[in-house]
């Protein structure tokens, strides 16, 4: 088990590569080398020795009484002030990936970023993260990144590049030929200033922002309705009733990390809270949001507008205002309207579809329900999506007609993700001058003449304003690994300015933001504090008169009412929770994170409703052809609306490094433009079954709980009547054993998982993978059920196939006090600690897998192959994702052993963090504080569903949660006495009685 850096030597070399190479040798000489203690080779080590033991143990051991090969210990020449070898440093920063934003802490060891944690101080993300945020650390070490600037794929220096580009830009400027700067939405104030100054230097340059899944309709609707363009600040935590029309706000809609926080905050039932919001979701596919809804109504995408119009009409009726003539709403809609009316001022209606008319109606509904100012505010805005779809369309036509002569592109990949990507690609190829400032090659950037590679965000300085007056700083955790330069620096250089972007930000902050606060007496302390906290939240008093200004809703409703009902298939494309827009396709952690609902990884697929599947004789794994020529495997998804199919974007990358290349199918072209807005669904789809089969990598193949009390749930009403509802048997078997319950003298570590808070997003899985060096196994291995995740999220369907209810349950090692796995290990490799941990000693394990068999929770993972290069036998590496090359191994946590082939591993409850926390308390000579130690999964969770703590500490949060009537142990009837417990899931549905 060799793979992590110990402390010192790695700083310099980045790896323990041999200091000296020796001449090639024959086999025999190699053998002798191993015993030759005088040899400086580092490639012969104890492990090599053990190899030979297999062949001739006897003679080997005798000879081995010589010493081992030489290991070097290389100290710093001059040690950086802040680095203590063996201790981690944290830097507050921000994660940005297009319109995704998160305030984070970068954990570095000996100057090497190894982990991303959420920043508690942010009032936007509240310390939560998403799977992609957690996985972004691996992007830093991506081997496919651009390593230097280039021209026509030839390496050039930055000076040459700058010279060339300036020349070209000036040439364009002189001839007054139009050029375009294409970026995603820029919500960094300083970057905006940089771009502006660039645009001033080159007035012939137009700036176009492009979001591959924009919020154009939202922005336009708000402009039309209220005269203020932009996206509202949604407050799901202020809404008692949430109605969502296909808005996957827990998955990928706007700011999921913040929305999950808000949503679950309102729905937590701990600390005496007795109310929770009710969530009603209309949607066609089973989204993450829909699977968390209390009521979910499967509808076709094209039917939504009609339903919204009817709902609006009914609300008007309830309000006593003149209503429109429109087809009669169903009882459900009328009931819903009544509920909304009762909850006016504390409800929230949202819609995900990028349709201006629909969004106007939604605005009108919210307006009539008096929700503006409470659960949504137009004066405060989400700023991460500002692009307007028509701009892109215009750009494409300008490029095609030759009106635009040059393109400077940064951070976007339209060739891949724009629905007219191929046209775009052809147009770019024709340009004589094109510069890409992307970090890594993608389908678009490779068509560019010049590559001026950007830094990874962990190598960059920046500032951000994701929401109105919520500022956030980005600071680097490491110097650029390659010869790259920040986008902003490049623009500054080309506009002929001082190129120090950090100074630029500072100046900007001093001028613009420092005056917004009064706490700090001078700018330096303001800056230092902001940098340390990562965020700055200005107190602004905004007054905005939210008055509905739009007339002519009648026409609009007429249009909707007169739209002919579509029959036949409707196809919806969406961003999957794990993959998102596909920018991270080359990230193996993301690829291997199963989708929360379908539990499929390493692929996209066409979800089909069970009824449809039966009619068309389809089953999961059948390959079907769409009339657009795309071939996709089928996944039969309960809850998918009849006559609809859906498929995820973000797959089928063709130019992104070895990991994500050709994984799945690119379906961007299945979007279309409607009323100048890009919409995700299309009608008139035809599907034909092919004879081919396709293997999907599923981590869960059985979807029913089989009537077992695995996830215990109750309705809110039942819960209020009896807090133990659904959990009548809680802790009933606690004292059933023949032996005394074990006693833990000081700590008894435990976890409580609140199933009511867990939305199933999967951030915990990736956090665990990053923290604990969990290997990536690849698609083939996942198909063989060899995945290694220490924490998995089980998903069960119950109810009908047509519209099942869904439960998520994170399952990690339960750290049973009567652990079945411990008894059966012949070599005592897994034992119990006096702190209640189920310990796994990898170096003792011989790999009988008996413990895995005997684990009722099936949380033990076996290293089937050498996934990590830690094995002693050569030439048997199974590494599909380049995870064992030196660069990517920089991400390994040096505090966790890298496991070798043939050993069992499992959740250790982040024992390395426990040990560190205890040590800190001991050094300070104090009691350990509750909440001081956080496991990686707990830290990453945006909803606070996982609570770690000391069960022996009666004042701790976990001890309180354990006493809750909702608390239960998984499979408690087999008396394993787990240290992990769950809180029942409460749905805000009608009780059975009432």
């Amino acid at each position, binding site marked *: 088990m060799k793979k992590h850096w110990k402390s010192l030597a790695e700083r310099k070399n980045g790896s323990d590569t041999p200091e000296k190479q020796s001449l090639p040798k024959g086999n025999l000489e190699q053998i002798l080398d191993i015993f030759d203690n005088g040899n400086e080779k580092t490639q012969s080590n104890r492990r090599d020795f053990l190899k030979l033991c297999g062949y001739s143990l006897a003679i080997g051991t005798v000879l081995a009484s010589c010493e081992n090969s030489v290991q070097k210990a290389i100290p710093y020449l001059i040690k950086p002030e802040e680095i203590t070898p063996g201790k981690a440093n944290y830097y507050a920063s921000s994660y940005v990936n297009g319109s995704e934003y998160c305030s984070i802490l970068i954990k570095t060891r000996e100057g090497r970023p190894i982990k991303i944690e959420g920043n508690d101080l942010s009032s936007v993300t509240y310390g939560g993260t998403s799977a992609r945020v957690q996985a972004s650390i691996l992007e830093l070490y991506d081997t496919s990144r651009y390593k230097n600037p280039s021209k026509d794929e030839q390496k050039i220096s930055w000076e040459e590049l700058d010279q060339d580009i300036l020349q070209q830009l000036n040439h364009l400027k002189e001839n007054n030929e139009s050029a375009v700067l294409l970026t995603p939405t820029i919500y960094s104030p300083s970057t905006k200033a940089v771009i502006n100054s660039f645009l001033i230097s080159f007035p012939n340059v137009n700036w176009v922002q492009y979001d591959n899944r924009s919020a154009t309709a939202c922005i336009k609707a708000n402009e039309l309705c209220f005269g203020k363009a932009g996206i509202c600040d949604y407050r799901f935590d202020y809404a008692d009733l949430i109605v969502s029309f296909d808005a996957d706000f827990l998955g990928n809609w706007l700011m999921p990390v913040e929305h999950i926080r808000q949503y679950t905050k309102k729905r937590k039932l701990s600390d005496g809270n007795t109310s929770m919001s009710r969530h009603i979701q209309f949607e066609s596919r089973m989204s993450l949001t829909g699977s968390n809804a209390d009521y979910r109504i499967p509808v076709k995408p094209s039917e939504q507008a009609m339903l919204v119009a009817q709902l609006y009409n009914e609300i008007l009726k309830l309000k006593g205002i003149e209503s429109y003539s429109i087809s009669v709403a169903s009882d459900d809609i009328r009931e819903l309207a009544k509920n909304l009316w009762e909850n006016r001022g504390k409800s929230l209606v949202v819609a995900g579809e990028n349709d201006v008319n629909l969004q106007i109606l939604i605005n009108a509904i919210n307006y009539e329900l008096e929700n503006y100012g409470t659960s949504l505010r137009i004066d405060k805005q989400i700023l991460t999506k500002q692009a307007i779809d028509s701009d892109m369309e215009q750009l494409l036509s300008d490029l095609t007609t030759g009106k635009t002569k040059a393109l400077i592109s940064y951070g976007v990949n339209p060739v891949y993700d724009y629905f007219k990507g191929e046209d775009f690609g052809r147009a770019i190829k024709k340009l004589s001058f094109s510069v890409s400032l992307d970090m890594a090659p993608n389908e678009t950037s490779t068509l560019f003449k010049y590559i001026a590679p950007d830094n990874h965000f962990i190598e960059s300085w920046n500032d951000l304003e994701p929401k109105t007056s919520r500022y956030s700083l980005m600071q680097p955790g490491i110097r650029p690994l390659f010869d790259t330069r920040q986008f902003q620096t490049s623009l500054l250089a080309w506009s002929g300015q001082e190129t120090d972007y950090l100074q630029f930000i500072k100046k900007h902050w001093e001028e613009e933001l420092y005056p917004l606060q009064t706490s700090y007496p001078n700018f330096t302390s303001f800056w230092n504090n902001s940098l340390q906290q990562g965020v700055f939240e200005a107190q602004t008093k905004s007054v905005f008169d939210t008055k509905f200004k739009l007339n002519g809703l009648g026409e609009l409703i007429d249009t909707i009412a007169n739209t002919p009902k579509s029959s036949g298939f409707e196809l919806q494309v969406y961003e999957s929770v794990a993959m998102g827009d596909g920018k991270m396709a080359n990230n193996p952690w993301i690829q291997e994170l199963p989708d929360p609902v379908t539990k499929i990884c390493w692929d996209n697929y066409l979800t089909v409703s069970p009824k449809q599947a039966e009619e068309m004789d389809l089953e999961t794994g059948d390959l079907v052809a769409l009339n657009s020529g795309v071939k996709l495997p089928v996944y039969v998804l309960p809850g998918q609306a009849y006559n609809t199919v859906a498929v995820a974007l973000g797959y089928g990358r063709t130019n992104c490094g070895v990991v994500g290349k050709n994984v799945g199918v690119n379906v961007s072209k299945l979007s279309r433009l409607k009323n100048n807005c890009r919409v995700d669904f299309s009608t008139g789809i035809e599907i034909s079954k092919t004879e081919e089969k396709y293997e999907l990598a599923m981590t869960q193949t059985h979807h029913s709980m089989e009537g077992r009390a695995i996830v215990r749930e109750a309705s809110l009403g039942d819960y209020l009547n009896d807090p133990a509802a659904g959990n009548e048997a809680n802790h009933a078997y606690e004292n059933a054993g023949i032996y005394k319950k074990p006693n833990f003298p000081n700590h008894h570590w435990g976890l409580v998982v609140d199933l009511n808070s867990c939305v199933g997003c999967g951030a915990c899985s990736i956090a665990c993978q990053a923290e604990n060096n969990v290997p990536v196994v690849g698609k083939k291995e996942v198909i063989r059920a060899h995945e290694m995740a220490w924490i998995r999220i089980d998903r069960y369907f119950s109810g009908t196939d047509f519209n099942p209810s869904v439960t998520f349950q994170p399952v990690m090692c339960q750290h049973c006090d009567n652990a079945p796995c*411990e008894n059966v290990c012949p070599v*005592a490799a897994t*034992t*119990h*600690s006096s702190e209640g941990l189920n310990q796994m000693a990898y170096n003792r394990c011989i790999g009988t897998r008996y413990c895995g068999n005997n684990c009722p929770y099936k949380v033990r993972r076996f290293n089937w192959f050498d996934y990590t290069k830690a094995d002693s036998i050569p030439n048997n590496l199974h590494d599909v994702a380049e995870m064992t090359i030196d660069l990517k191994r920089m991400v390994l946590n040096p505090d966790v052993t890298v496991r070798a082939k043939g050993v069992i591993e499992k959740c250790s409850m982040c024992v390395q963090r426990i040990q560190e926390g205890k040590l800190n308390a001991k050094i300070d000579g104090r009691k350990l504080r509750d909440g001081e130690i956080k496991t990686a999964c707990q830290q990453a969770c945006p909803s606070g569903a996982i609570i770690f703590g000391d069960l022996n500490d009666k004042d701790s949060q976990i001890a309180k949660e354990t006493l809750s009537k909702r608390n239960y142990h998984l499979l408690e009837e087999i008396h394993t006495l787990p240290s992990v417990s769950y809180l029942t899931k409460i749905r805000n549905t009608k009780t059975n009685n009432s």
Partner: protein
Amino acid sequence: MKRYISAYFEDEENLLRATKELRAKDVSIQDVLTPFPVHGLDTALGYKRSNLPTVAFICGAIGLAIAFGFQTWAFTVDYPLFIGGKPHFSIPSFIPITFELTVLFAAFGMAIAFFIRSKLGPGANNIIHDERSTNDRFVIIVDLDEAGNQDAIVKSILEKEEALNIQVKEIES
């Protein structure tokens, strides 16, 4: 000078009768070599009951004590581990290994005792009087006194029982 007489029978019943008669005449029988264990021969020759069962018992007892003692010591004194919420000293868990080692020690102890006592072992090469004594001949070797007083009696008994190849041998002692 040591003298003895050797002969063989082709049927074990002749051998048995001859043995009984010779014993009745107080003639000392040095050895009887048979191809298979002849029922009743050991009583006819007056052999005492073997002590091997006692050896087996003692060895078994040692095995039992070692196995149980070692498990107890290792789990309660030397390295007590918390395993699956079970007590350190857990008799049911120790029984299988204790039993196995008891049997192992008893069986091997007894077998080793047998080989040592019988002077058998790898490479032991005892004199083979007749190559067919392991096949179908029942060989008897009778000690004779130096004076030769018994020769006639022995010979007559042997001849009576159809013994073949009766030879008198002399060996310098």
